[in-house]
């Protein structure tokens, strides 16, 4: 909630700043700047690179600020670390009261520290205590244990820092809260601050160093390259098989009544079934090894490619076909020189979608069952609460998916430059 508000305010501030700066700096003199109608003209909208940079920096800033990272110049308040103290007042069965001090040392999780030493000078039946508590945790402080008569019935702790306390109640003290359990034991919970604990969200540099470590040492018997490479190989194999079958099938459906009639119900039925829903069945039929995964990805790519190439064939302008016939082309030549090239843009669009779907599907399938792969890596890490590996895996999956899409777009521009130009 707070994070969403901070994000929204960064957005608003950046929006105003970028607009001001660009109004001051640039008097652009290109065609777009001369257009008077820009609202609603899609071609006049191009991504503002300053906004892009601020957006990415903003995400890292928030991430860093909430994890106490070194890369963030400002941090939200962290958990209390250090020594603090409070006092308690006990009452013995005789109705006498005595006060004693409790010294608390709050330390970083996993660090080995000693509880603070007690200063001398301690009269009365309640004796001073000391305890250590890890940040973000809470710890019981058994103050009665060393008190004279502290184990007798009727001996009670009645006040903390002079405020009365009863089982189930709590009292705010310096740097934390003291509460009393149902059995009358005190428990100290230090201030948590706003920062996230490492097992919830590690700092960016922790993720980075984990990446460096895994890139050189590997994780669970496979190197990072192997994990990611296997996922990629599965995607490419499944996509290639799906295209190999789907594209000819789509052509056949676009060119022949019989094929159209025969495969229409199958394709239309399979199209809305998400590939993820097939995972259980594929595992039952083919097991969890490579065959099963590649068949799953094949099915994920198949329908998309079939529909794309069918649309590519149906989309051919009839005047082009007529023109080719009057120029003396045979059916086969029309197929090769008109129908296929004319359908390539559609097929490329389909291929981009299919690669995206396959990449998502392979990760999901590896989450369910695999020995290696990007998805397997993060699900294995999550079982040991290695959140830094999980986050690193998610980021890598995102980067690779984005990279695939960029590559496909490049290839498209290079191979079918006539897309959208007819």
């Amino acid at each position, binding site marked *: 909630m707070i994070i969403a508000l901070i994000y929204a305010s960064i957005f608003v501030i950046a929006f105003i700043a970028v607009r001001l700066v660009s109004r001051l700096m640039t008097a652009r003199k290109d065609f777009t700047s001369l257009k008077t109608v820009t609202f609603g003209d899609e071609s006049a909208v191009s991504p503002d690179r300053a906004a892009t940079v601020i957006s990415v920096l903003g995400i890292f800033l928030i991430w860093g600020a909430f994890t106490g990272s070194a890369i963030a110049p400002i941090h939200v308040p962290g958990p209390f670390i250090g020594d603090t103290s409070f006092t308690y007042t006990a009452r013995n069965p005789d109705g006498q009261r005595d006060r004693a001090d409790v010294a608390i040392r709050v330390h970083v999780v996993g660090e080995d520290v000693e509880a603070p030493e007690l200063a001398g000078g301690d009269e009365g039946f309640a004796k001073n205590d000391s305890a250590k508590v890890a940040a973000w945790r809470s710890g019981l402080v058994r103050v009665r244990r060393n008190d004279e008569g502290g184990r007798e019935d009727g001996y009670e702790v009645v006040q903390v820092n002079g405020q009365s306390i009863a089982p189930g109640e709590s009292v705010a003290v310096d740097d934390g809260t003291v509460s009393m359990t149902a059995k009358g034991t005190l428990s100290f919970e230090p201030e948590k601050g706003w920062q996230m604990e490492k097992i919830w969200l590690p700092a960016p540099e922790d993720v980075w160093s984990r990446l460096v470590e895994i890139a050189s040492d590997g994780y669970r018997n496979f190197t990072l390259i192997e994990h990611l490479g296997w996922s990629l190989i599965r995607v490419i194999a499944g996509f290639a098989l799906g295209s190999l079958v789907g594209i000819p099938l789509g052509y056949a459906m676009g060119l022949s009544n019989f094929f159209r009639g025969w495969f229409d119900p199958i394709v239309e039925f399979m199209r809305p079934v998400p590939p993820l829903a097939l995972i259980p069945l594929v595992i039952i039929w083919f097991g969890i090894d490579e065959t099963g995964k590649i068949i799953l990805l094949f099915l994920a790519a198949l329908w998309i490619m079939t529909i794309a190439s069918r649309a590519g064939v149906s989309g051919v302008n009839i005047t082009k076909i007529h*023109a080719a*016939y009057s120029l003396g082309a045979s059916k086969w030549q029309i197929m090769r020189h008109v129908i296929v090239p004319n359908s390539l843009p559609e097929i490329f669009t389909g291929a981009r979608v299919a690669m995206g779907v396959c990449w998502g599907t392979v990760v999901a399938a590896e989450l369910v069952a695999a020995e290696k792969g990007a998805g397997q890596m993060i699900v294995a890490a999550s079982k040991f609460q290695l959140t830094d590996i999980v986050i690193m895996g998610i980021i890598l999956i995102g980067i690779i998916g984005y990279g695939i899409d960029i590559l496909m777009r490049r290839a498209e521009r290079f191979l079918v430059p006539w897309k959208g130009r*007819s």
Partner: protein
Amino acid sequence: MDGLVIDDVSMRFELPNGSHVQALQNVSLNIASGELMSVLGPSGCGKTTFLNIIAGFLAPTAGKVELNGSAVSGPASERGMVFQQGALFEWMNVRDNVAFGPSMKKMAKSESAGIVDHLLETVGLQDFKDKAVYELSGGMQQRVALARCLANDPDVILMDEPLGALDALTREKMQGLVLKLWKETGKTIILITHSVEEALLLGERLLVMAPRPGRIHKEYRLPFADMGVGADLREVKKMDGYSETREEILTMIWDMEEEIMGRAETEQ
């Protein structure tokens, strides 16, 4: 017989709702080879249908079409076609578009290259050989379409409003080009147009068609096409008889349009 024979051709489209459209009724016509004929008529009178039947894209419901003595049964390279737009292949550059016909016939590259170069020069596109067709203007694209059709050396060239999508100035230049190509190549050309002026300039013979059912209404033989070859077309328009014929045809087509409107109103 030499030339194109259209013998008692009728075309009737059965509509899904059970009614039908008589797009052509008993059209008979002989076109000698080398003739330049323009076809005019109100929208929907069956001009495109007529051309599609000659091209072989449609089989008439009655009658037959013969070219040089053999019956037309489908599209073939002896009958070339130039469309209004959108018929060029975007995935080929200008040169490959023009070379499409020859390469379909498996003509050697070395042989077709000469033809292509010559034609591109004739239509004035020698400097655009390697350009993609989508980089050309509409008028240039139509010149590519003309050259592509000619590269196949067809006997008959069929044009369905080939200049309809061009601006007035480009259009006038292209009209001159069509005349020039007609004279240079001696091809039979049938050209459909919506512009009466264009029909007058680009027709040795001018056919006016009437709708519902589609039929030949009147035919003219005109001197303007011959005069226009290599001449200033605006001068031709000042010739004796030009404006009189134009007015006569315009009135004729207006009357037909009004009749259609009237009929449509009484039908309602």
